């Protein structure tokens, strides 16, 4: 946990209107979503280590409350976009595990037909505009979603996620300037896990109290959020989202969180730049799923047995998605040339004009 929240007196956000309105069922659903994300990724990690999954695998384990807390407030008019650590947002946006796991396995049944991989999950029909590979490169796209909403006269807002490393990218600052200048309904969510790859926030960012404070330079609202408390995540995100939706005012939320694994599974120094004590401290004291579970039991919303059963289901679902992925066909080599140009895919008369592709 970064110092920004450690020194702050604890407030209880359970009583805020947006949390008070939660039914027991909805509260359990938040647990189910977090647990599904975690079990999906644990399964993915297993098969990555077994060599069945290629490329990079940026795990979200430890950060689940961010995607679940924020996106639980989004409806069909809202949109979201993130970087390469996108599994949590994808599942929370309503994507099924089967096409996601198949994508990791590089299969034709994957959500991006095996063309995107771990970093590039998309479900535009669910308002999820993806997983993008370049640090900070998605921040102007999130701005564009907000611009599109406003231009087309549509309701809703855009949530654009970034890591604490991306706050130093020029594209992010350009986006903040335009967001405030054009009054666009975008909420930037900094998922501050303390490390931009292997370099700690303290060594990579110049800041005073927190990263979100940089919003002041753009005359924009901001807040810092304890990511281990889903009530706080929801309460503060709700305020930012409502302001964006109703007043077209952008904001930055910095949600303090932590990742248990390396930047990606391929992060060779994952165990060197953080002490085992630091990781253990987070797991023991701040794990969002463990804390939420405790809360649900304390509130009498669910019993340990019920929650165990939900976890068991999530595990089974993740295991089944591996079976689906393994049994799925690989893409054909011919499919490499699909999805490059709209007109060639749609076989329009224009696709017969001129040569689009050049090989050898």
């Amino acid at each position, binding site marked *: 946990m970064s110092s920004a929240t450690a020194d702050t007196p604890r407030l209880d956000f359970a009583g805020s209107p947006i949390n008070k309105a939660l039914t027991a069922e909805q509260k359990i659903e938040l647990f189910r979503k977090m647990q599904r994300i975690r079990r999906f990724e644990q399964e993915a990690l297993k098969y990555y280590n077994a060599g069945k999954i290629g490329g990079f695998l940026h795990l979200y384990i430890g950060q689940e409350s961010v995607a679940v807390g924020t996106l639980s407030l989004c409806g069909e008019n809202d*949109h979201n*976009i993130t970087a390469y650590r996108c599994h949590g947002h994808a599942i929370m946006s309503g994507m099924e595990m089967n096409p996601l796991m198949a994508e990791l396995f590089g299969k034709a049944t*994957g*959500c*991006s*037909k*095996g*063309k*995107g991989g771990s970093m*590039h999950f*998309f*479900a*535009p*029909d669910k308002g999820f*505009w*993806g997983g*993008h*590979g*370049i640090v900070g*490169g998605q*921040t*102007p*796209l*999130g*701005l*564009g*979603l*907000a*611009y*599109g*909403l406003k*231009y*087309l006269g549509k309701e809703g807002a855009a949530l654009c996620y970034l890591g604490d490393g991306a706050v130093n990218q*020029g*594209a992010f600052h*350009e*986006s903040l*300037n*335009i967001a405030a*200048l054009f009054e666009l309904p975008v909420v930037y969510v900094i998922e501050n896990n303390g490390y931009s790859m292997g370099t700690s926030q303290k060594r990579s960012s110049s800041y005073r109290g927190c990263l979100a404070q940089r919003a002041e330079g753009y005359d924009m609202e901001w807040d810092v959020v304890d990511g281990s408390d889903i009530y706080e995540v929801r309460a503060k995100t709700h305020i930012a989202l409502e302001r964006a939706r109703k007043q077209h005012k952008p904001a930055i939320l910095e949600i303090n969180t932590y990742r248990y694994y390396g930047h990606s599974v391929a992060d060779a120094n994952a165990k060197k730049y953080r002490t085992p004590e630091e990781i253990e401290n987070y797991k023991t004291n701040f794990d969002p799923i463990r804390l939420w579970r405790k809360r649900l039991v304390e509130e009498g919303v669910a019993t340990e047995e019920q929650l165990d059963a939900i976890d068991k289901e999530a595990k089974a679902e993740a295991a089944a998605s591996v079976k689906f992925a393994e049994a799925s066909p690989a893409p054909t080599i011919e499919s490499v040339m*699909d*999805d*490059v*140009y*709209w*007109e060639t*895919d749609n076989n329009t008369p*224009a696709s017969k*004009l*001129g*040569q*689009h*592709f*050049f090989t050898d």
Partner: protein
Amino acid sequence: MSRTLTYREALREGLDEEIARDPNVVIMGEEVAQYNGAYKVTQGLWEKWGDKRIVDTPISEAGFIGMGIGASMLGVRPVMELMFWSFHSVAFDQLVNNAACVRYMSGGLINCPIVMRGPANGGTNVGATHSHIPEGLFAAFPGLKVVAPATPADAKGLIKAAIRDNDPVYVMENTRLYGMTGEVPDPADGDFVIPLGVADLKREGKDVSIIGHGRSIIHALEAAETLKEKHGIEADVLDLRSIRPLDVEAILKTVKKTNRVVLVDESKGFGGVSAMVSHLIQDNAFDYLDAPIKRVTTMDAPAIYSQHVEDEQLPNPRRIVEKVLSLR
């Protein structure tokens, strides 16, 4: 019927017609609205269409181009002006990682119907950083389409096709052509759109094929006139117009007719569009060649500032004539 318009007026007329035709078309860029466009291409459009359709942006290429790409994913059809294509470097990530790749990486779920336009040329004595000619560079990224109109009529026809296209299209204009006049069909005679991917034989000959795009075509036509008058050589001048998709058929047709080829390209000697065209010719029409394929490109150094020399660094009619004569 047709009228005489300048290249910039033709572009403006094309933009104006598309704004009128489709409410989702929006023009965006630095100084495009209240300032009326750095090169006056968008002059009068803000007064006519207002703040919603014609949008001034900060000098912030990565930010506003990325914003346009995001908006296009949602169904807006933005036409982004780059004051100079040389400024692509500031927004390169957005141009090649987001616009070019998002359709592919999403397995075809997301379209990106955006147009990027602006001048891409040397020859204005503005030094190295403002004189890049990146047609070949962007054509090398699958997912992108690249066009380079040489005449007012082509400028209008191609910008309209670009705006209607469902893929990202990069329109490489030329500062030195903005004031050039030419015949453009009258709007009263119907919708004038030039499909992407169709080259245009701008002059007919039998002895040599001069192939190029953009301002090179104007030089090639002048060279062809000299070749005819002074040397009795009749040149085919083929204007590629569209770099990607590329009219390979038209290229091979003229080569098979004349058996001699000079390629003209404002890119530098290394790489560039002409290098690709040269490869296609030797791969597909080697047996038709009576001489090696020759190129006239920009001398392989950053653009020189000196107004005394820059036109010599670039392809020009004299250099084209010399290269054609060297084939004999």
